[in-house]
């Protein structure tokens, strides 16, 4: 029997959901136009007035917001309420340029935490669960978001934050944690550490994990599920749109239900901005529907994915999005070819290598170079140079087949690729240094 946190929303009919969205969108657009000069100017430039937006069918009339707009408007330019009404700030790490700062009123925090509560409930969480939150706490949205959601569900919450992995495992054993929330790369690391400590999944009580904030693959899901003895679920969100919980996976594990009573989703052609029909692959665009402090209308996420209203066996009617298939921020153009790190990761896992890798891109005599360092596992090691060189070559060929360009593959010793305990750093692009 599936559990819902807010069944009236999560299982609403399409008409009911449309009605909610129409009503909220009209209000949200007016709120933004009245309070955010930056966006009002964009609307005026396009000749769109709040009166032109009467239902979600009018959404396409609104101008887009991009990451560049967020940078231009930093820090207060998109704030839609008085600072005295705000109670919280969260921020991105700022690894790809200027950081993004998002503001929350108490109502914004509550709605965000409700979204996370839906996600926790969808993986079987109840007030009998012990939820270990090993996302980073602080400006990063992962820890605070899932922490709040866990409280709302009534789980006993362990606010561990990330790091100190042996202590994580001790707490997991002593306090019988049943749900783990962290980044997928940290979940994989906890799995490895468990093994290194001589323990097996039978020694812990985890049943489910909610992993997000970075791209991961189906192979990685299977690895994590095996090493921790759990079901691993995806969760999606961006600091700009509040944080994790914009969408979440249910027991079907075939994509994430979008909390579309709060976030209206569109797929557009990233080149032309044209709205694409359901089922098309394109850039995901979100419009917040009831934000007070930091509403974003038609915000281009840069994530490439597909939306689907296909009936889900869990009973939820919320529209589903696929795992992002790539991100224009992560996309590298190497020798004229579009390369996503997730493609390389897929090959590595398929060929039996660990998901710990480092991609280095550089430029030598006007030609791009692609070097991939991969950790060798003890099982793969042999005593002859011939065998190991053949392994490097085979892997380079498999990657070439996937990408269309040849990389140089370097086998390195296990655990030598620096692993941050939060977001994984997987790409170093040195070309920018020479420009």
């Amino acid at each position: 029997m599936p559990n819902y946190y807010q069944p009236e929303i999560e299982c609403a009919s399409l008409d009911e959901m449309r009605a909610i969205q129409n009503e909220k969108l009209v209000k949200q657009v007016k709120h933004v136009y009245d309070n955010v000069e930056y966006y009002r100017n964009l609307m005026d430039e396009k000749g769109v007035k709040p009166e032109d937006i009467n239902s979600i069918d009018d959404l396409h009339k609104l101008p887009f917001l991009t990451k560049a707009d967020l940078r231009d408007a930093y820090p207060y330019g998109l704030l839609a309420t008085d600072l005295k009404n705000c109670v919280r700030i969260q921020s991105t790490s700022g690894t790809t340029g200027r950081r993004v700062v998002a503001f929350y009123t108490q109502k914004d925090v509550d709605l965000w935490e409700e979204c996370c509560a839906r996600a926790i409930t969808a993986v079987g969480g109840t007030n009998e669960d012990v939820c270990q939150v090993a996302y980073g706490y602080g400006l990063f949205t992962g820890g605070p978001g899932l922490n709040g959601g866990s409280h709302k569900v009534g789980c006993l919450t362990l606010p561990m934050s990330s790091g100190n992995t042996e202590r994580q495992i001790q707490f997991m054993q002593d306090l019988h944690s049943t749900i783990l929330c962290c980044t997928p790369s940290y979940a994989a690391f906890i799995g490895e550490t468990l093994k290194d400590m001589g323990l097996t999944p039978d020694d812990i009580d985890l049943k489910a994990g909610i992993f997000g904030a970075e791209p991961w693959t189906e192979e990685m899901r299977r690895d994590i599920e095996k090493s921790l003895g759990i079901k691993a679920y995806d969760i999606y969100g961006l600091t700009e749109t509040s944080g994790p919980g914009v969408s979440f996976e249910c027991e079907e594990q075939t994509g994430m239900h979008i909390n579309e009573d709060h976030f209206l989703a569109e797929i557009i052609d990233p080149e032309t901005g044209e709205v694409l029909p359901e089922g098309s692959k394109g850039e995901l665009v979100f419009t917040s529907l009831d934000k007070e402090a930091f509403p974003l209308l038609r915000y281009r996420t840069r994530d490439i994915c597909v939306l689907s209203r296909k009936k889900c066996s869990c009973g939820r009617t919320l529209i589903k999005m696929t795992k992002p298939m790539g991100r224009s921020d992560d996309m590298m153009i190497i020798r004229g070819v579009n390369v996503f790190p997730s493609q390389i990761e897929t090959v590595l896992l398929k060929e039996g290598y660990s998901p710990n890798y480092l991609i280095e891109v550089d430029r030598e005599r006007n030609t791009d170079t692609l070097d991939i360092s991969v950790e060798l596992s003890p099982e793969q090691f042999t005593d002859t140079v011939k065998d190991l060189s053949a392994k490097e070559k085979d892997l380079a060929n498999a990657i070439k087949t996937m990408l269309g360009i040849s990389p140089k593959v370097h086998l390195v010793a296990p655990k030598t690729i620096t692993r941050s305990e939060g977001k994984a750093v997987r790409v170093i692009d040195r070309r920018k240094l020479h420009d």
Partner: protein
Amino acid sequence: MSVKQISVFIENKKGKLAEATRYIADNNVNMKALSIADTQDFGILRIICEDPKAAEEALKEGGFITTVTDVLAVAISDKPGSLAAILEVLAEANIVVEYTYAFLSAKAGAYMIFRVDDNQSAAAALAGAGIKTANQEDLF
């Protein structure tokens, strides 16, 4: 008929080999033979020692990745042509030699280590030519 060789994966970075050999010494593993094969990216350190089991455990403990291989050790006399004679016997028997290196035992004199594709056939061919292959205890 054969002896145990431990191979250790070494990254081709400054100090990595020193780190591994220091670690081995600190764990009281007395190396009797050592050879290094390397490429641009990595090296393989090959070790013959008295207690391969203890050595392997110590290395694993230290986070190194290792593998144990059975290799042939053949006593070699100090005169020209003795290595050629062994290689001829192996070639005659269609044995592929992956690599070979020398090894000096205080107890038993000079040896050559051979890593071949088929220990059984190689040892038989050598025995047929009157060349004996050593056991672990012959060396220490």
